């Protein structure tokens, strides 16, 4: 089967799925969200070897940017949040869709800028210190926002609701995620074949060597994280529209849920591979839904057990296992007898 045919079939499934299984539309939308955050995480975690535990910062920040932009286009934000649902604030369909069209890219761009600034400090840290440092940023971000009354403080903030019927709303959200996810996938597929892609791999494999060879390590690290942050921020913006009301600690800057899930997805599927995060997100999402439905009360235990098993026994994930078992599928030459130096 040719690759193009494979992509076409996947594309058709993507378009048909929400109509074929309307009851699962929200589930499928969440799966796309997982794919996006996992794929973005892998850009720095898998491809560049910098394991961030703070990418959820961009998700939360993306949500708030979406809210501020969408509301701010029509009403003063402080007045809107101050009323806390008390006043009558209506949005016309035009205002709603304009907010959506502007705020999703704005969230991405704002988060990319944040990554540049935060990265300038945190990329001085290596290994576990980077992971903890970025986690600190995410926790601090959540705390800051929950103390900032202008955007609703700890109460959170409400987005305008979708102007037409609810079924259509779910479909729109699904396709927003799907389009972003597909764009991200093909963007990565291209990016990892460029010299930039090779350079971030070099940083992962031996950053000291990369520096000694004159690679612009800091510049490339910042760019990689900014790209990653762009997609997470844009996904956060879509989530803001999807959830309608959200608050800072449990939803936006949810470090222990989505913030960790994205890492687990990548570990399950295989770090540093194009398909690993996608496959891992599917595996994780299925596992999570099954445990949440059939082991309610024990779901966190099951999830914790899964994380331990993955980290201890399958660090390289499914793709890593396949690479090891079937190197020829990945174009890795193993040995040649004619070789003589």
């Amino acid at each position, binding site marked *: 089967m040719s690759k193009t045919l494979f992509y076409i079939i996947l594309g058709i499934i993507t378009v048909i799925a929400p109509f074929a299984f309307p009851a699962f539309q929200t589930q499928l939308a969440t799966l796309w969200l997982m794919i996006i955050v996992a794929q973005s995480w892998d850009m720095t975690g898998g491809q560049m070897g910098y394991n961030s535990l703070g990418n959820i910062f961009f998700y939360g920040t993306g949500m708030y940017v979406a809210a501020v932009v969408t509301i701010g286009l029509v009403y003063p934000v402080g007045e809107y949040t101050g009323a806390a649902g008390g006043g009558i604030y209506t949005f016309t369909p035009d205002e709603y869709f304009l907010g959506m069209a502007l705020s999703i890219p704005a969230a991405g761009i704002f988060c990319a800028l944040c990554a540049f600034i935060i990265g300038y400090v945190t990329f001085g840290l290596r290994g576990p210190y980077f992971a903890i440092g970025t986690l600190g940023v995410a926790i601090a971000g959540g705390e800051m926002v929950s103390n900032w009354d202008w955007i609703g403080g700890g109460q959170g903030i409400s987005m305008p609701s979708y102007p037409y019927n609810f079924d259509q709303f779910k479909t729109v959200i699904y396709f927003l995620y799907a389009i972003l996810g597909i764009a991200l996938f093909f963007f990565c597929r291209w990016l990892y074949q460029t010299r*930039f892609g090779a350079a971030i791999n070099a940083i992962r494999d031996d950053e000291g*060597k990369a520096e*000694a060879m004159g690679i612009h*390590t800091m*510049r490339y690290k910042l760019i990689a994280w900014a790209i990653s942050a762009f997609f997470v921020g844009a996904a956060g913006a879509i989530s803001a529209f999807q959830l309608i009301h959200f608050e800072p600690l449990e939803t936006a800057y949810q470090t222990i849920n989505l913030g960790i899930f994205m890492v687990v997805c990548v570990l399950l599927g295989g770090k540093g591979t194009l398909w690993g995060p996608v496959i891992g997100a599917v595996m994780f999402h299925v596992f999570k839904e099954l445990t949440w439905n059939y082991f309610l009360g024990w779901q966190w235990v099951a999830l914790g057990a899964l994380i331990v098993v993955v980290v201890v026994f399958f660090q390289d994930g499914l793709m890593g296992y396949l690479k090891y078992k079937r190197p020829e599928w990945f174009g890795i030459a193993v*040995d*040649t007898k004619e070789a003589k130096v």
Partner: protein
Amino acid sequence: MSTIIDVSSVSKSYGGVKANTDISLTVETGGITGLIGPNGSGKTTLFNSIVGYHPIDEGSIKFEGQEISKKLVPEIARLGLLRTFQQTRIYGEMNCVENMLISLPHRKLSLTDAFKKNTRADRDKAEQFLDFVGLYEKRFLQAGSLSFGQQKLLEFAMALMNEPTVLLLDEPTAGINPTLINGLIDRLKRANSEFGITLFIIEHNMRVIMNMADKIYCLAHGEMLAEGTPAEIQDDQRVIDAYLGAH
């Protein structure tokens, strides 16, 4: 000939260990300069100081007339002053061609060039240099699976790919099969004469360096012991004693 690297009165200590004391030397443009000395005499330390690996305690280091002793490793590498490692550093998970392509001179790439794929010409160049060091047949093998000597050759090829002005080689023949050393000497000389790369070579093996260098410096106990042409160094009693004393 003009001076390309000018080290003057450089000292460096690690805690109590004085690894380099008041070292001065020059490397001439277009030549092959040798740095010898017994194990632990401070050769690698001096290389590390030149390429910005650690701050020096005293002295000055100039490259093409510009003070570089306060610059960072990647900045110095981007000036065209490159080094290889005594412990050999290659990207073990990637194959040889990929190792070569990553070594393209990024200082000559604009940001938009960095977001392009490698060209046919880049690949040809990679394969040419792999052929030059004798690794062409192994080009698609994972670099980590090569023998230590082959990894050294790969690291040398990667350095050439980077088009340096000056290449600092830390014991390029160590760990290389003795039957291949003559071939390597020949390639080092050709890198100098054909590609015009100025070489500054740390070498433990006296026979090797005598064969290549036009000027040799000898360190002992972190101090400059002697300098001169290979013939002068070979006959220098202090050098002979230092080497004999070290064994």
